[in-house]
């Protein structure tokens, strides 16, 4: 009996919520895709996050911060196991880092069950922002469909009468074209879903040439986009049809791989390297100094996620365990932190209400190909799925 009582007491002690004391150290679980073909994006986010930490003297929210990195290798099962490890063994206070929506959706129940806050530096799937919204989820990036809505609005504003849409045949591809169609009112010549990781696009390009649309919208992330843009330009189509892409298909990581053929494209993004504010100038200059390359939107998202954590922990006076206080601080953080994107309001479902820009791929004065901001296409844009979230 005594043994049982002791065991019971021990169990209770394990589960008893700690008194909401200020932590003396912050431990962050950074679960990301860091190796394999898709590892480039995770590395970019990590570099941005690390830069913010470094500029902050290794502290976030005035607390010494330990970041535990884990590599999901773009495998949802691996991601879930690593999340368990980070939460149970390493006992992290916060989680961040996930690149891909499929990993995010697989890992999310584990994080939510552990009642740990997750700060998204990238994937923000609609399943978590609509009906399934949660107080533990906070996106420091963008709702998944926003860039595509911005692109549709841009094609509409340019007066393009017809558009050909192409995306890979997987959930994010369908979401992307749904987003585009929500804001574009012209004729959709074709909505083409190509194979995931397709190499050769000659058959599609021939169809596009024959259909002769005014605009072509391509959401082909990673290597697919590189293949497509190279082949699109080699086929001579860039002289006839305006290619529009979301920023994921055309930022500096892709520019470095494609070069000159990128010129003349338009893309959409929540950020641009030439946004006119001090925080952004500091970010771009420090990033270039540290890594010898122009940052991408992914790097900005990693950097911004760290700044948001810093602000929220500071405002909650280090009481990350006090859920109510910390969430309140987190939701206010985007209005207080000095992020490269400027200030924004966070919607009740944990997604940013922010501006989206159109950027043109042009050469700057030094001959570098850059994504230059040309206009603000959506102002204070909010997640379409906010309407389905019951949190107010």
């Amino acid at each position, binding site marked *: 009996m005594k043994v049982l009582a002791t065991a019971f007491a021990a169990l209770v002690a394990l589960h008893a919520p700690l008194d909401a004391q200020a932590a003396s150290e912050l431990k962050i679980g950074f679960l990301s895709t860091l190796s394999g073909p898709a590892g480039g994006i995770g*590395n970019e986010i990590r570099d941005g996050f690390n830069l913010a930490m470094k500029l902050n003297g290794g502290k976030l929210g005035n607390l010494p911060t330990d970041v535990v990195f884990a590599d999901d290798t773009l495998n949802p099962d691996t991601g879930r196991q690593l999340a368990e490890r980070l939460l149970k063994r390493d006992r992290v206070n916060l989680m961040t880092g996930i690149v891909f929506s499929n990993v995010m959706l697989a890992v999310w129940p584990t994080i939510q069950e552990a009642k740990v806050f997750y700060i998204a530096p990238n994937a923000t799937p609609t399943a978590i922002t609509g009906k399934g919204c949660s107080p533990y989820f906070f996106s420091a990036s963008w709702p998944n469909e926003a860039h595509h809505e911005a692109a549709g609005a841009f094609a509409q504003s340019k007066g393009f009468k017809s558009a050909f849409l192409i995306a890979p045949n997987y959930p994010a591809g369908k979401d992307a074209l749904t987003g585009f169609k929500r804001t574009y009112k012209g004729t959709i010549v074709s909505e083409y879903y190509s194979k995931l*990781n397709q190499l050769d696009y*000659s*058959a599609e390009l021939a169809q596009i040439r024959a259909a002769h649309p005014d605009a072509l919208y391509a959401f082909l992330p*990673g290597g697919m986009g590189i293949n497509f843009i190279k082949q699109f330009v080699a086929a001579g189509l860039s002289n006839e049809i305006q290619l529009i892409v979301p920023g994921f298909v055309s930022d500096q990581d892709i520019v470095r*791989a494609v070069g000159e*053929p990128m010129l003349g494209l338009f893309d959409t993004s929540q950020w641009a390297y030439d946004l006119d504010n001090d925080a952004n100038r500091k970010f771009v200059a420090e990033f270039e100094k540290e890594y010898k390359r122009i940052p991408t939107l992914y790097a900005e998202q990693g950097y911004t996620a760290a700044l948001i954590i810093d602000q929220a922990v500071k405002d909650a006076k280090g009481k990350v365990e006090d859920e109510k206080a910390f969430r309140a601080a987190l939701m206010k953080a985007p209005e207080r932190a000095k992020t490269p994107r400027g200030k924004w309001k966070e919607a009740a479902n944990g997604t940013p209400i922010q501006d989206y820009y159109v950027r043109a791929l042009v050469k700057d004065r030094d001959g570098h190909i850059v994504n230059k901001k040309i206009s603000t296409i959506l102002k204070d844009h909010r997640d379409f799925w906010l309407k389905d979230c019951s949190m107010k």
Partner: protein
Amino acid sequence: MSPILFFEQALNGVQFGLMLFLLAAGLTLVFGIMDMINLAHGSLYMIGAYFMASFVEMTGSFWLGLPLALGATALVGAALEVTLLRKLYARDHLSQVLATFAIILIANEAVRIAWGSQPIMLNTPPSLTGPVVLPGGLQYASYRLLIIGVGTAVAIALYLLVARTKVGMLVRAGASNREMAIAMGVNIRRLFTIVFALGAALCALAGAMLGPILAVQVGMGENILILAFVVIVIGGIGSIRGAFVGALVVGIVDTSGRAFLPIVFSAFLPPQLASAAGPAVASILIYLLMAVVLYFRPQGLFPARG
């Protein structure tokens, strides 16, 4: 559909087939002659493309970079054969698969350490960046015409090498009956090293030729290797002729599927559904084809062994 579009799609099919042939030729040589399942073939393709990108940047010329990349990758291939693969010949296929799969992982991370995790640049030579106008007013990417030319030239050169030279004779002997070839005094060790280095050089050629229209990035080999395996299974393992025919069949079937199925489907489906269902069905066509070939001719279309 206009005749021009039809012709363009046919050309696209041939072109894609020859792209695959460049990779499948080396794979079938190694697979057929050395009886060795080399999953790392795709890694050599990746290494070839990375070497090409670096040498082109170093020399400033596509045409100078090409032989350097071929030579360097052949050396890597030979070194790999001598140090590691040689120990695997006597083992069963499962050990070979495991060991060469390990090489894929090691090669991917080695390339990441050497060149970084972001895709790198490799572009067409300046003279071949745009399209040319073919008879009938068809605009076609000039670089893709070069791929057609190189693919055809490699096919002819390999045919002559295998059918008309002493090395080719040994290769054929090794492919059809290895024990007998050894019994007749063929220096199999040296032959294998040569064949493997040649296979690696072909990989580099494929990587160098395809790099300018595909992404040069970590893991680029795995994706295309699956198609190359389909090609040699359809064509018959170990046969260059089989690889050539198999590659053309796969290229044409895959391209026509993507080109014509959406049109066929739109005859009896609503347009939105047709444009979604067409590519989806097209993407399984070559695997369907492979299943059919395996059912009727388990050895492939042109088996090397009797």
